[in-house]
Every structure is written in structure tokens, then in C-alpha cells.
């Protein structure tokens, strides 16, 4: 267990070390001015000096991301279940969903900011919107693809739609939910960034814009690193959840 974790850490460390080395080499060899590309040492220094500021903005972005994800996931799961349970809902809502999906949710960020202001609500709505569709569609597809044998079994048992959904379709659809979650883990941090770029008073995206405007390139890079850390933690959490539930439900 510990040996495996150590191997994983080593495998992750190699690309990071290589990237840092190449970065330092480019800076030293080309002599680029530090306000265009600061070296890794400068960025680390800035990360250290501005730790409190970065931490505070990371917390803000992370809480937006968390709330937005929870709402997006809840709505996505609810929509998928509603569509799976009701033929009428499918008839009414599916074309709307397809149409809505054709509008890139990211492009709505300026409109949402216009309507809801620079604060938390506009960010949460953008994140929820962006994560909602992958969750709803991945879960719905899997809910509707019950293997023929199980469908026969349900019919011969005389099962109602509710129990069939609860006992057969939902457990069968867990991998669909997980692939939706993986997409949400990728889109979610992007939505945070875009929401904050469009207009915000706090957050890592805001910090990047501010430091860029003030020529504090090292701080901008430091904020970028914090944002990557946030995305990576989310991705690791989703990956761990997937492994655990796939093992528990014996899909793997």
C-alpha cells in the first residue's frame, strides 16, 4: 500500500521535475525579462510571500466550485431520473435539452454576470450550468440502456417503473454517473475561471487578472499553480470515488 503510494508519487514527480527544469532552462538561456516569464524560483517565492492572499482566494474559488458542483450534480441526477421515469417528460424535455446543449454554457457567463452581478451567485450558476449537462446526459444514457436480460426479468417479475428504476436501472447507471462526474471535474474549474474573468471581486481567476494588470507576473503564475492544485484535488477525489464505487458495485 505504502510502496504503491510511493511509486505513484514518484511517477507524478518525474514530469513535474522535468517541467521545472525545462522552464528554468528556457528562462536562463533566453534571458526573457521576468515580467514576461518569471523563473520557477521567483514563482515559488511569490507563492510563499503571498500565501495568505492566495489561500484566501483559493478558498473563495473552491467554495464556489463546491456549491456549483453540488447544485449541478443534484439537478443533473434529478433530470436524468425524471426523464428515465416519465415518457411524457422525455417527449417534452429531451429536445429542449439537446437545444440547450447547443449553446456553449461558457458563452453564457457574461450574460449570467450581467444578470446576477459580480458576487457568488453568478459563479455558482455558471458552474452548475456547465456541470449539469454532462451529468444529466451521461446518467440518462446509462439509465436507458438496461441489458435486455434484466429488462426481461423486470417484465416477467411484474415490476413497476419506479422499482425497476430504483433496483435495476439506477445501480446499472452508476458508471454513467461517474463518467458524468469526471467530465464535471474537468469543466467545473474552467467555469470558475471564466466566471471570475468575466467579472468578480475575489477568487483565483480574479487574482490572475489583477496581478496581470499590475505586471506582477510571478503572482499570476502562483495563482495559476493554486488553480491547477484545486483542479487536481477535485480530479483525484472523483477518481477515488469512481474506484471505490465501481469496486463496491463489482463493475470493474
Amino acid at each position: 500500500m505504502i510502496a504503491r503510494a510511493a511509486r505513484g508519487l514518484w511517477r507524478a514527480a518525474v514530469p513535474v521535475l522535468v517541467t521545472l527544469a525545462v522552464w528554468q532552462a528556457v528562462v536562463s538561456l533566453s534571458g526573457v525579462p521576468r515580467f514576461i516569464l518569471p523563473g520557477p524560483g521567483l514563482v515559488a517565492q511569490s507563492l510563499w510571500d503571498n500565501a495568505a492572499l492566495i489561500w484566501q482566494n483559493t478558498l473563495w474559488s473552491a467554495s464556489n466550485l463546491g456549491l456549483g458542483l453540488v447544485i449541478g450534480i443534484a439537478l443533473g441526477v434529478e433530470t436524468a431520473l425524471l426523464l428515465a421515469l416519465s415518457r411524457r417528460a422525455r417527449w417534452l424535455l429531451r429536445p429542449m435539452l439537446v437545444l440547450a446543449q447547443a449553446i456553449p454554457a461558457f458563452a453564457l457567463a457574461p450574460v449570467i454576470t450581467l444578470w446576477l452581478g459580480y458576487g457568488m451567485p453568478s459563479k455558482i450558476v455558471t458552474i452548475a450550468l456547465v456541470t449539469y449537462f454532462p451529468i444529466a446526459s451521461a446518467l440518462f444514457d446509462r439509465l436507458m440502456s438496461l441489458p435486455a436480460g434484466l429488462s426481461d426479468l423486470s417484465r416477467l417479475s411484474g415490476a413497476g417503473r419506479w422499482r425497476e428504476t430504483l433496483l435495476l436501472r439506477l445501480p446499472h447507471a452508476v458508471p454513467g454517473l461517474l463518467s458524468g462526474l469526471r467530465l464535471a471535474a474537468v469543466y467545473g474549474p474552467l467555469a470558475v475561471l471564466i466566471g471570475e474573468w468575466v467579472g468578480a471581486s475575489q477568487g483565483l481567476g480574479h487574482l490572475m487578472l489583477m496581478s496581470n494588470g499590475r505586471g506582477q507576473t510571478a503572482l499570476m503564475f502562483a495563482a495559476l499553480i493554486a488553480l491547477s492544485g484545486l483542479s487536481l484535488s477535485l480530479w483525484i477525489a472523483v477518481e477515488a470515488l469512481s474506484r471505490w464505487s465501481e469496486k463496491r458495485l463489482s463493475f470493474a
Partner: protein
Amino acid sequence: MIAPAIHMAGSLHAGGRCLIEAFDLTLPAGRWSALLGASGVGKTSLLRLIAALPCAARLDGRITAQDNAAIAPRVAMMAQDDQLLPWATARDNVTICARLRGERPQPDRAAALLADVGLAGHETRKPSQLSAGQRQRVALARTLYEDRAIVLLDEPFSALDAMTRHTMQDLAAGLLSGRTVVLITHDPAEAIRLADSAWIVTRTGVDPCPLPPTAPPRAPEAATTLTAQAALLQRMRLHLASEAA
């Protein structure tokens, strides 16, 4: 539970093509009936029609039970693919049909049936922790848990190795006796071992086959069994040749 005879007559069509021109078949009450034939001839369609399951083929005719009551609610089915829930334990798989109806599952009865099929102590295993033969045993226990008068078997043992298949055939013959069983198989040996009556399904109809006078399950090594098996194989080959001509 009184197992009824099933009468089916008519013609079977699929995609504008006639699969079986005209047939008239009475599957005797409380007995094993085997339907043999080449793949694609419509054997599985006949089974699905008995169970009132969605089916690509259409029957011009009728399927009735001898007592004229509805058939589908009295049917349990077992297929080649075990159709077990990968996420559920053996016991939960056995009780799934009851749970789907909203009935309270009876874990003790499930455990007793699992013991009957030789899986005592395996109640909490998941399908991935069981062999193909053991999974098929769980499927048999699930079929028994339903306690239906009519049991439809769609090549349930054909994916198993020879020894496991032999054991499963004995087990099924014992545990399903007294029910009206319809067995779809492409294996003449299986039909000869298990069936009280057997038919070869062809494009022109159903051809009844002679079986040894002894009661099933018949010993596979008995001379009468072996002779009947050879004769049945020969008969199936003749049908195949005349269809091709």
C-alpha cells in the same frame, strides 16, 4: 400450483418473412418439452411469445393455456446468459423478482434454495466471485424462488463445460419436476436426457421426435439413450438438408 398444458398454433413471421409456415403444438402439463432446431429458426421467438415478452417475430395464431387463464404471470425464465445483477449478492439476486414487485424478500427461503442448488455458504458472494456454473445455479435458484407453474429455459446450460452441464441438467430435472417446462436447445443429447416430449422446429412446422420409453432424466450412458440421440441427430441433419435444398 397446477401446471397447465400450453397449446400454440399458427404461423410465425418476422420482417415480412415467414419463419414457421404452420404449426400446432401442445406442450403437456407438468412435463418437460424440448424444442430443437437450427439457430435463427424462431425457437427463442416462440419462447418469448409464450412469456409475452417483446419479440421481433409476430405470431399469426394463438397461445393458450389448457385452463384458459393468462400464461405470462405464471412464467419464470432462465436463459443462457445468467442475467444476474453484478452488484448484488447471490441471495439478493435470488430475491430480486420479489423485491421488484415490492414484496418483502424471504432471505431464509433464498438461502434454502441456494442450498438446494448446492451453493450453501455462498449467499453473500457476488456474481464476479462465482464460476459460470455457480452463476447458473444462482439463476436456477432465482427461477425456483419465483415458484411459477411454467418454466421457460432458453439454452440455459449451453455455455457450460460438459461436466458442469451434466450436473446442472440433473439438478434442474429434479428441482423443476411437476412444472410445465419448455426447454430450447440445439443439443440432441440434452433433449434426449431431459425431455418427456421433443420437437424439431423447421420452416415448414414442428416435427415430433420419438424418445426412449424410460422417464427422464435418462442416464447418458444407457444404450437406449445413445441410440435415440443418434437417431435424433440424424433427423435434424435430414431437416437441415431438406431446408437447404
